[in-house]
């Protein structure tokens, strides 16, 4: 809610922090995070069990592996999006960056570019797009949602303007391997995601950069006065988000073998839903990689399962929407009940 210049507005309102301060902040937070991830895991396992009962074809190793093709690209973008949201920012241009990188790959491919060149172009365009977002946001100090709203229209608009109602479909034969291939029975996409997730986890948990992200999300002003290079960290995060959206664009283009202007349309909200369901607070400062990975698989397999059962996509929307709201409301309700009980105890 407070996507303002700093989080100071929340301090007096959130009485829970006063209580938490007494009970070793670190322990409380890790406890909470663990609980969130375990809650998600339970929902995840329950979903798998439910669909296995409802459909005989769901619980099949090959099917479950192949189902990952439908959500790995989104899961990859979710990783840098953790950092974006952790800092209290948001990036709604990611799907349009996919469109833009796919557009340039398509143009290069028509001109006869090889697969390595296409990969370079896809990543490069993504990085540049992310840099543009980051520079406008940090150097001019404009709210991220306003900038990425504009670039969302601009990037996809460029794709619309160039392609019109046409599409690029000529890609080199070995390009398809990235989005469709397997290595030792595991889809290349899953391996790429595993690498990205591992890097994200290490950066977030074991580097100064990761600590900076938490600090910025908790209190931007305090972080700045503590010597955190706030704007540089945010710039790097937006650039990384662009780069990985470019990577997702490569995988998606390779998987479907074509570039159309409406490619990946609406994905930004799916990615944000994944990150938020994964326990990253939209107000910033709280979240973890593990939760988001579980959320990505939960949402992915839920959609796959409902697809197997012939549930129409729009009806799935009701369920994912309700899941998002309930999953976030539930722990808050429990927390507020516990807080009330605690207050009564200390008050008496």
């Amino acid at each position, binding site marked *: 809610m407070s996507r303002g210049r700093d989080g100071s*507005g929340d301090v007096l309102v959130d009485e829970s922090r006063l209580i938490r301060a007494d009970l070793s902040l670190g322990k409380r937070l890790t406890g909470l995070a663990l609980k969130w991830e375990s809650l998600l895991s339970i929902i995840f396992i329950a979903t798998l069990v439910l669909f296995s009962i409802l459909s005989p074809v769901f619980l099949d190793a090959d099917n479950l592996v192949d189902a990952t093709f439908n959500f790995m690209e989104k899961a990859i973008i979710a990783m840098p999006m953790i950092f974006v949201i952790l800092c209290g920012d948001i990036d709604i241009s990611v799907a349009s960056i996919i469109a833009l990188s796919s557009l340039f790959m398509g143009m290069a491919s028509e001109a006869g570019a090889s697969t390595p060149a296409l990969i370079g172009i896809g990543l490069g365009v993504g990085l540049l797009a992310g840099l543009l977002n980051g520079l406008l946001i940090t150097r001019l100090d404009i709210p991220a949602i306003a900038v990425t709203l504009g670039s969302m229209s601009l990037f996809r608009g460029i794709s*619309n303007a160039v392609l019109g109602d046409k599409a690029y479909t000529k890609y080199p034969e070995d390009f398809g391997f990235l989005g469709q291939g397997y290595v030792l029975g595991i889809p290349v996409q899953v391996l790429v995601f595993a690498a990205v997730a591992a890097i994200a986890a290490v950066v977030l948990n074991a580097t100064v950069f990761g600590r900076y992200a938490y600090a910025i999300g908790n209190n931007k002003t305090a972080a700045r006065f503590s010597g955190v290079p706030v704007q540089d960290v945010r710039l790097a995060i937006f650039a990384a988000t662009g780069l990985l959206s470019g990577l997702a664009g490569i995988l998606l283009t390779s998987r479907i073998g074509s570039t159309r202007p409406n490619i990946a349309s609406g994905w930004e909200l799916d990615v944000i839903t994944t990150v938020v369901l994964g326990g990253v607070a939209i107000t910033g400062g709280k979240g973890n990689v593990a939760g988001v990975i579980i959320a990505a698989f939960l949402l992915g397999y839920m959609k796959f399962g409902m697809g197997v059962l012939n549930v129409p996509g729009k009806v799935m929307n009701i369920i994912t929407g309700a899941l998002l709201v309930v999953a976030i*409301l539930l722990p808050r309700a429990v927390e507020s009940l516990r807080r009330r009980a605690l207050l009564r105890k200390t008050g008496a």
Partner: protein
Amino acid sequence: MKRLLKRRESILLISLVALGLLVSIRARGFLGFENLDSILNDTCALIMGSLGQFMVILVGGIDLSVESVMAFTGMAAALANQAMPGIPAWLYLPAGAAMGAILGAGSGALVAFGKLPPIIATLGTMSIYRGIVFVMSNGAWVTTHEMSPGFLSIPSTPILGVSSMIWIAVLAVAAAAVLMRRTSSGREVYAYGGNKTAALFAGVSERKVSMLIFVASGILSGIVGVLWVSRYGMAHSETASGFNMQTVAACVLGGVSMSGGSGTVTGVVLGALFFGVINNALTVVNFSPFYQMAIQGFVILFAIVSNTLIDRRNQMKLAARRLI
């Protein structure tokens, strides 16, 4: 501060007029009554939708459920009309408003009582409401020939020579302006958006503000949904898809701060009109419609960057004056 806001709106107004004059050099009749009437008719939906969006942005939030509420009330109206063509046409508007109010209250309750940030609450209700539209219609479309002539003429019925669509938009703008400027509830929304802590200490109710803005946004979206479906003679589960971002864009262009607390009804109306004029100009000048989105994106980025630079310069001047 007030003078600065005024100046921002006058800049927007001047560029709007300049744009109109520029286009009319290329295309005669662009500023003629007929074409202006058609621009206004095309932009009414955006104006009303943006007003609802504006109130939510004013508290630093965003309402992603605008387009789903529109699809919901539009489909409900179309289905009702299909089943009972005898319902008097005027009844659809208050019914749409009421339904929109309930849907808006749903999002509002999640924010006010569930303490969810607006973006999360409406991300959820956006999916849920649009899903219900699909269930309601079984995925089918309701098309022009399944609608009664009375229903189809809701937005085009002329009153005193001007279509009812424009009258409704004028009423909505007037109501929003009075609410935001002249009532204590409206001032509370500004206060809450500007500084939450200060507003709470001044006795502003967080719950009241949240419910007010989402119900208001729901009512506006609800009415727009009915008008949209009867104007285009078509209701389906993808109705108004992508409209959310257009409403946010109109607010941003109108000088509404995304971090909350500042912005005016006039600015929002001008912002929406600007997009209406651009879109109309592109067709009039025979520009490919495929360029529309890119130009829209460029305009948004240009507007926010120049707004920021103007703000910064004014602040520097202010600071310099203080130093002396």
